[in-house]
């Protein structure tokens, strides 16, 4: 009997390459196993995908709302309704004067006649407006603040414009925008909470699938333990299964969201046209895609790890 308890083993380099080889083999083996049971694999992947679709879709929805609202902020305008006794020439003079002011990007003059025509066209009152003895509308200047101005600076500009002698009323309708932003903030947090909850659901789905897989391969695990397999060796194929579930679930979720976006894109663009803006639907960026796939793969790995840690040690030869 040899003194040292040396197992019959190949050299270190060989073992390292064998270790890498076993990783590759586990990877391919677990993939092959999923391929050989397409129905159950597809079902698990679909459940993961649908679970991930909700937070991913919600995220995309938020991204688009932010896109629209950003668009709205850049079109913030101050309407200056001039006093009724200010003539067209004086109004044009004021326009030229304001144009040169700091913090003003553009000024457009809508004369009282133009305003009436527009009102006639859009209000549907039509000919009944002819009964008016004179045009009740004032000249209006639309002032577009420079894009670099923030809310307080815009308010200051509003105050300054209000003080112009020709101006009757200066109006800035941004309150609803502020409310929208607050709502968006709430929605953003909701997205985070939903993402966390559904990530947890993915963990449970993967964990349960791997648990069943472990149970169905009870015999194999017992035998491999008896012939000297380490826990890491036995664990590996299960962990790779989890990784595959997560990866495919993430990819399918991405496809579902992109297809849904395609279905929505048409009417969405039409909506944009109705608001005279060339809105187009924002979809996943490369970074978003990587995060989705990375997160789903990680969830698959963690889910299978939890299942393996819990159930593999319970299986011992009897």
């Amino acid at each position, binding site marked *: *009997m040899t*003194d040292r*308890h040396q*197992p*019959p*083993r*190949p050299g270190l380099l*060989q*073992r390292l*390459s*064998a*270790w890498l*080889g*076993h990783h590759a*083999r586990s990877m391919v083996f677990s993939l092959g196993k999923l391929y050989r049971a397409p129905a159950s694999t597809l079902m698990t992947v679909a459940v993961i995908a649908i679970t991930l679709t909700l937070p991913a879709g919600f995220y995309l929805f938020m991204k688009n709302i932010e896109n629209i609202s950003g668009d709205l902020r850049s079109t913030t305008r101050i309407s200056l309704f001039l006093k009724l006794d200010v003539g067209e020439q004086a109004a044009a003079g004021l326009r030229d004067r304001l144009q040169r002011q700091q913090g003003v990007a553009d000024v457009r003059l809508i004369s009282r006649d133009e305003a009436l025509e527009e009102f006639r066209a859009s209000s549907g009152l039509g000919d009944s407006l002819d009964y008016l003895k004179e045009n009740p509308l004032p000249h209006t200047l639309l002032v577009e603040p420079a894009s670099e101005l923030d809310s307080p600076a815009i308010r200051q500009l509003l105050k300054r414009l209000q003080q112009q002698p020709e101006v009757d009323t200066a109006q800035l309708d941004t309150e609803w925008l502020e409310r929208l932003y607050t709502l968006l903030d709430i929605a953003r947090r909701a997205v985070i909470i939903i993402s966390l909850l559904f990530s947890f659901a993915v963990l449970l789905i993967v964990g349960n699938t791997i648990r069943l897989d472990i149970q169905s391969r009870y*015999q*194999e695990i*017992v*035998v*491999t*333990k*008896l*012939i*000297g*397999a*380490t*826990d890491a*060796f036995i664990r590996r194929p299960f962990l790779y299964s989890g990784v595959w579930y997560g990866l495919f679930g993430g990819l399918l979720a991405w496809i579902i969201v992109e297809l849904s976006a395609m279905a929505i894109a048409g009417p969405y663009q039409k909506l944009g046209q109705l608001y005279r803006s060339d809105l187009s639907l924002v979809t996943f960026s490369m970074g978003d895609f990587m995060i989705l796939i990375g997160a789903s793969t990680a969830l698959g790995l963690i889910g299978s790890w939890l299942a393996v840690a819990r159930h593999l040690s319970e299986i*011992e*030869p*009897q």
Partner: protein
Amino acid sequence: MIQFHHVTKRYPGGFEALSNVSLHLPKGEMAFLTGHSGAGKSTLLKIVSLIEKPTRGQAILNRINLGTLPRKRVPYIRRHIGFIFQDHQLLFDRPVFDNVAMPLIILGYPRNEIARRTRAALDKVGLLSKEKAMPITLSGGEQQRVGIARAVVHKPMLLLADEPTGNLDPVLSREIMQIFLDFHQVGVTVLVASHDLGLIEELGKPVITLNQGKVIHDDFGGLDDG
């Protein structure tokens, strides 16, 4: 190779499978472990193969105390042992070759070495032509031989067999025993649990007999200090 010092194994519920067993199986020997069913043969093998731990006493395999071995080291010790089971425990979802190659994959042999050694082991048990067959298509004797090939493919220093001929007819049983004798010839320590007393007598190897958890006969004379 195997030393038991006053080993007692009591299962939960109070059943005592082994009572104060002392024995010594020297390296390179081949011995039979006999006794009625329930005499403690399986328990003794389970202690050697690290499936059970002794309740009292010391079980030593190749100078390693099996009772105090940390769980993490268990797989590495098991790699020295080739197990042969009565129901051979083959995996039916893969061909004969893959079954036999399992210990080598666990040990991390390169692919070509695995193929070479696996074929050598299959040749040894006379099943080289069946390497691509699925275990389910083989006869009982052939399945048992596949089990033996898997147990010896990585050249363990100890072979443990638990009723390896339990399900086989006398001719096949003799064939299987001959394979064990061959391994013993090349220096492997072999311990075979069996109650096929006729066959054991015919082979003329040392016998250790258990009855109700106690050693009642030991051709090695037990342990000096026992």
